[in-house]
């Protein structure tokens, strides 16, 4: 029978009788457990910060090159902006051909051009910058004397665009165009130019100058068919290497001397280099990671008319990292072709040329596009100034021979 009423004393006595409970484990086991746990904890303390630090370092490595690249174009813009002044224009003009020099005296910039310059005439150091800076990128007829023009289509750093690059080498009598094409392939400095390493091709090239056929013989384990990207790159780089000029009309493929090459999902035996003038590409700017000069790169799409092409050249193509080649300040009133292969471009009155270098590049893009559409020359009407860098706008401008002249020396 249980008690129903308790005094404090009785309860306390009962509490004192509660049984002792002991831990029967070996102290050594306990110590081991403790040592293990303590160590684990220490390791955890050390792991988290080091993981975070490693992540930060990786992030930094990934982001650092981008940060550096972002700064470069803006710096270039700054230096060009400060360099653009009346004096500098004059300087640049004097720098060019003698013919222009004769005229330069009667050309008054202040009077007849609506261009708004950010003048800093008190800055003599900028003169030199500009004279050095204003340059053309394409190859022109006058560059060709005694030289062999070799065009290579090289994928850009991301493999998104095919950049046609022109290299001029000294003509050698005992070597054919094709010999020089093959030799120079190994000397290309793709990475230095901000493009991706592509040449020399891992293939044997053979050329029949009579039939104008280039044969590409690849080893059985060639890498060009891995994925559609490398397939497209391989085909279009070959095609666009020969699309200018009349040296190659057909490209045939063999794999270790057997006909055909497996690219991606299908096998091809030959490609025909099409030289029709429409539809044709326009040109956009591709700024490489290194260097200030853009590459003038064909648009991914082709256009039926030159007007469509010029319209497309005003739009940025973010997916391909291509910048517009025609700026807002450069507006066309109309574009008129004539039967002699000359294209007349009428500029609007509001045409505004603040950035001389950029204007030169834009004109080159205009000329190259005109060339793609089969024009021999371009005449610019209503020019804001008579000379833009090396271009004398009072005359017809001959289209360039090829785009993106680069030196391999």
């Amino acid at each position, binding site marked *: 029978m249980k008690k*129903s009423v308790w005094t404090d004393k009785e309860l*306390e006595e009962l509490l004192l009788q509660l*049984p*002792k*409970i002991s831990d029967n484990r070996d102290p050594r086991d*306990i*110590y081991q457990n403790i040592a293990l746990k*303590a160590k684990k904890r220490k390791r955890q303390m050390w792991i988290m910060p080091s993981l975070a630090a490693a992540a930060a370092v990786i992030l930094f490595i990934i982001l650092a090159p981008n940060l550096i690249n972002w700064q470069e174009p803006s710096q270039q813009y700054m230096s060009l902006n400060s360099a653009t002044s009346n004096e500098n224009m004059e300087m640049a003009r004097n720098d060019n051909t003698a013919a222009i020099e004769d005229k330069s005296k009667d050309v008054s910039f202040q009077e007849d051009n609506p261009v708004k310059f950010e003048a800093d005439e008190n800055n003599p150091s900028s003169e030199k910058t500009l004279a050095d800076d204003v340059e053309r990128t394409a190859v022109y007829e006058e560059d060709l004397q005694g030289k062999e023009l070799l065009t290579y289509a090289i994928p850009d750093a991301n493999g998104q665009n095919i950049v046609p690059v022109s290299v001029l080498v000294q003509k050698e009598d005992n070597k054919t165009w094709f010999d020089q094409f093959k030799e120079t392939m190994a000397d290309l400095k793709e990475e230095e130019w901000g493009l991706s390493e592509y040449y020399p091709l891992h293939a044997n090239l053979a050329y029949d100058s009579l039939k104008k056929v280039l044969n590409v013989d690849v080893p059985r384990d060639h890498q060009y068919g891995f994925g559609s990207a490398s397939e497209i790159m391989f085909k279009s780089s070959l095609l666009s290497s020969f699309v200018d000029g009349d040296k190659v009309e057909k490209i045939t493929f063999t794999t270790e001397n057997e006909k055909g090459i497996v690219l991606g999902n299908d096998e091809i035996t030959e490609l025909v280099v099409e030289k029709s003038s429409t539809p044709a590409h326009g040109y956009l700017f591709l700024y490489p990671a290194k260097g200030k000069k853009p590459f003038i790169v064909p648009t991914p799409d082709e256009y039926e008319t030159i007007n469509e092409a010029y319209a497309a050249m005003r739009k940025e193509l973010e997916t391909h990292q291509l910048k517009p080649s025609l700026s807002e300040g450069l507006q066309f009133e109309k574009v008129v072709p004539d039967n002699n292969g000359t294209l007349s471009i009428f500029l609007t009155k509001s045409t505004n040329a603040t950035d001389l270098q950029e204007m030169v590049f834009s004109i080159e893009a205009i000329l190259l596009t005109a060339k793609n559409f089969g024009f021999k020359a371009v005449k610019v009407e209503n020019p804001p100034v008579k000379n833009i860098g090396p271009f004398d706008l009072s005359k017809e401008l001959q289209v360039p021979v090829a785009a993106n002249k680069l030196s391999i020396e």
Partner: protein
Amino acid sequence: MDSVFEELYSKYHQDVFQFLYYMVKNRELAEDLVQEVYIRVLKSYKRFEGKSSEKTWLFSIARNVAIDFFRKQKGWKQRLLEKFDWSTQQVKDEHPIPEEVALQNEEIRSLYDCLDKCSVDQKMVIVMRYLHELSIAETAEALGWTESKVKTTQHRALKILKKEMEQLAEKEVAICEKVSVDR
């Protein structure tokens, strides 16, 4: 083995273990918590200033470990839900009665059960005062309380125990009577 550990083990291990056992009433849990106590002790042993006795210092750490354990067991969400859910408050989890207790007489067994009706603080005071026979002053030191707080808590705890024991007895009487009437 660490000399500090060896010393502490030989002097206080069973005390600390028993204290934690009575707090959680589960052997495995108590074993884990003892280890936790040692880890904390070994970490801060150098900082032990000797202001208090080693024993009370160890008990205060054991107390913190026990409180941390109870806190961890109940996240704030569960605690909030429990406030609204009256039914769960009645349900106490059934811990198996250890051999040591099972061997004792009926009164002690019911006292062991009734301990659960006290709050954590009250339980701590009861265990320290009656199982470890710490003085009021030592208990106050280990818990970081004033002596008067220890006294009142102890008083309240005893009152609850008394009430619970009486209720338990009444229930049993009622059952016995019922059984006899049925006969």
